[in-house]
């Protein structure tokens, strides 16, 4: 019990409980790796690879969030390979997705010197906002595929399973059954997906209306009309 491993991080010797992940150790010495997909409420899937670090003797970089430590591990958190991967992931992401409402991603781009115009003429995920229910809108050109909404809708929080990862590769997307509007799915409008979204791709209807310049009374009227419509459809 309570056994520790000793590892070396950027030249510094660190002791840590042996069941720790690399990220837990990095947090303990105040050097957390940057994260995109991770959230405390959802299961880590190692998707974004932004938290990668270099472990001596390993062929590929290790994602800190899901990699358990070993005795004697020698870790570099800011090697050339690490920085290139982090910077390039951000540059490729920014070329595909609208990150204007993701302040954490903006800060990471500044930290790693990402060139916001690195990939000109790149295919983007530009598309129309899906506005099909009174509670939230889905603005998927802001979606960076962190899967948190699918996890929140499924086994991690709500057990409702109204959305899934669809498509493949760059065409991956969050989808409903045959692209049905949300009111036609099993969605219970719990709002957990909106709460875990990192980029405002999922946005509450109130916020959406406020951005369009509607005042409080107008918003109330709009929402009431929509709820009536939704109820009437059933």
């Amino acid at each position, binding site marked *: 019990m309570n056994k520790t491993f000793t590892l070396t991080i950027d030249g510094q010797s660190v002791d840590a409980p042996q069941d720790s992940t690399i990220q837990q150790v990095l947090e303990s010495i105040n050097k957390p790796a940057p994260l995109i997909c991770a959230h405390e409420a959802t299961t880590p899937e190692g998707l974004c690879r932004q938290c990668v670090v270099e472990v001596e003797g390993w062929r590929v970089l290790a994602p800190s969030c899901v990699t358990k430590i070993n005795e004697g591990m020698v870790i570099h958190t800011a090697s050339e390979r690490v920085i290139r991967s982090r910077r*390039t*992931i951000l540059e490729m992401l920014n070329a595909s997705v609208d990150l204007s409402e993701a302040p954490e991603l903006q800060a990471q781009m500044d930290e790693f010197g990402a060139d916001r115009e690195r990939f000109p003429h790149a*295919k983007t995920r530009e598309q129309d906002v899906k506005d099909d229910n009174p509670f939230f809108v889905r603005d998927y050109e802001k979606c960076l*595929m962190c899967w948190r909404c699918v996890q929140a809708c499924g086994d991690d929080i709500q057990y409702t399973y109204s959305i899934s990862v669809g498509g493949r590769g760059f065409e991956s997307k969050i989808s409903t059954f045959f692209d049905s509007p949300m009111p036609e799915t099993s969605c219970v409008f719990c709002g957990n997906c909106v709460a875990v979204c990192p980029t405002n791709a999922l946005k509450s209807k109130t916020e959406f209306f406020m951005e369009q310049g509607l005042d409080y009374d107008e918003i109330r009227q709009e929402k009431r009309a929509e709820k009536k419509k939704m109820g009437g459809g059933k």
Partner: protein
Amino acid sequence: MQEQSFNDFLREIAPQGRTMLLPALLEAQKEFGYISKEMATEIGNALKVPFADISGVIEFYSMLHSEPTAETIIRVCTSPSCSARGGRDVHQQILTELDLLKDGATADGKYFVEEAPCLGLCDKAPSALVDETALGSITPELLLNPQDNVRTEVYAKESVITGRIGEVDPFSLDDYLANEGFLSFPNAVQIGPEKMLDCMADSGILGRGGASFPTKMKWAGAAEAPGEQKYIVCNSDEAEPGTFKDRVILENDPFSVLEGMMIGGYAIGASKGFIYVRGEYPKVQKTFQAAIVSARAKGYLGENILGSSFDFDIELRSGAGAYICGEETALFESIEGKRGFPRLKPPFPTTHGLYQKPTVINNVETFANISLLFRIGVDAYRSYGTEKSSGPWLFSVSGDIAKPGIYEITNPTTLRELLEWAGGVKDGAALQTVLLGGAAGKFVHPDQLDVRLTQEDAHAAGLTLGSGAVVVLSENADLKQTLADLGHFFAHESCGKCYPCQLGTQRQAEILDRNLTGSVIEGDFTRLEDVGWTMTDASLCGLGQTAASAVLSAMEHFPEQFK
């Protein structure tokens, strides 16, 4: 009538639940030409799968469609081997012939045309699959009047692993028995699991799927893992562009693979095996299913096999168009009825494999080697190959070569010697390069031809044998086109799970397209390097980690191709 029989089928499989999702979707696709919302709803209700997940699964597999297709589906291969030999031209010609502007269905609902990734018919390039008929040397006329014309040539100086190919009737268990079949399983039973593992360690047998991992390590790990239920899985999702050896083994000598799986089951204590065959190999599926049926009928599968206390059965599962499902954990996910996403490792399959149970997963050629090993013994097995790459090795040779086909190498052979054996570059042209190891492999510079085709020599030369694909490109081949083909292949096949691969394969394809059309922009070379190394270093699985391998090797050997 159709719908009635489909409903009966659904009722029959319903108790098995989600694991039957892909079989149900494939059946619906076959019966109705697509999977309608109504049909998907019935499938979801029967198998108790959330509806959103069903759309997710349909959209993941390229052979499944949620919109009507047509009576006949024409899949034209545009992967490197076929593209280099005119596949793209025939694709364009058939579209024109059928009055189509792009891939899709004809107005009369008769034909549906689509580009396909490697169909494993590379030796007969350009190739296509029309419904379930494999076609080589295609023309638009042949596509409209399809007749199976694929007879892959097999070359061996001494036929060791290929001995039965062409000599036996693959549908006859008696033929297999008459040709030293089912000799290895009794040998294995006689020495028992512990000595079997020693025997495998002594043989030095390595996996033939591409990673060349010591097979004994997998088997010992699964044998030692706690748990009553364990599985043997045969990875027959051969989809590495330029590779077709598993198809040839399974179409011609299925029982050797079946026997290898039985031996595996006995060694690790598994009573159930799965063989996952890619959807693009319908002939393999028919042949192996027939082998399972006749093995059951004669008591080689089932309970108390050959009077022992060993029970073992095999179930065949079809893929549905996804290269990533050749990755072992993605393959498990697919059998479990999910999108074929690779899992995080650890844990490894030996302890947490199919249905999270201890599992041994090996490639087709590996199981055939297991059969061979327990038939001829360690010393005879070791008399082939080298100390570190023991046994016979199969290479799939295609592209601009005089005699494409399968080559069995039993003695150390250099790449130059292999090319000479295969008649040299087609039409006497000079060699430009060889793509060794498939799309996930590397381009070989003409200076490197004296490398011996063993794991140790390839590794020392900074190359990889991968799954044994040897794609030859002559001086007349357009390397920029091949590079763009590779870019499209990986962008099409990336599963989309991790960011470096999901985004990187798309960015790589865009840059390689610019390179092909002569519209390179300043900084593309370093942009391509950054994308490539980021995929290599940071991707979650082997697909992303090798998606830039060939491109980076071309940038090293042929930088002038990127101007």
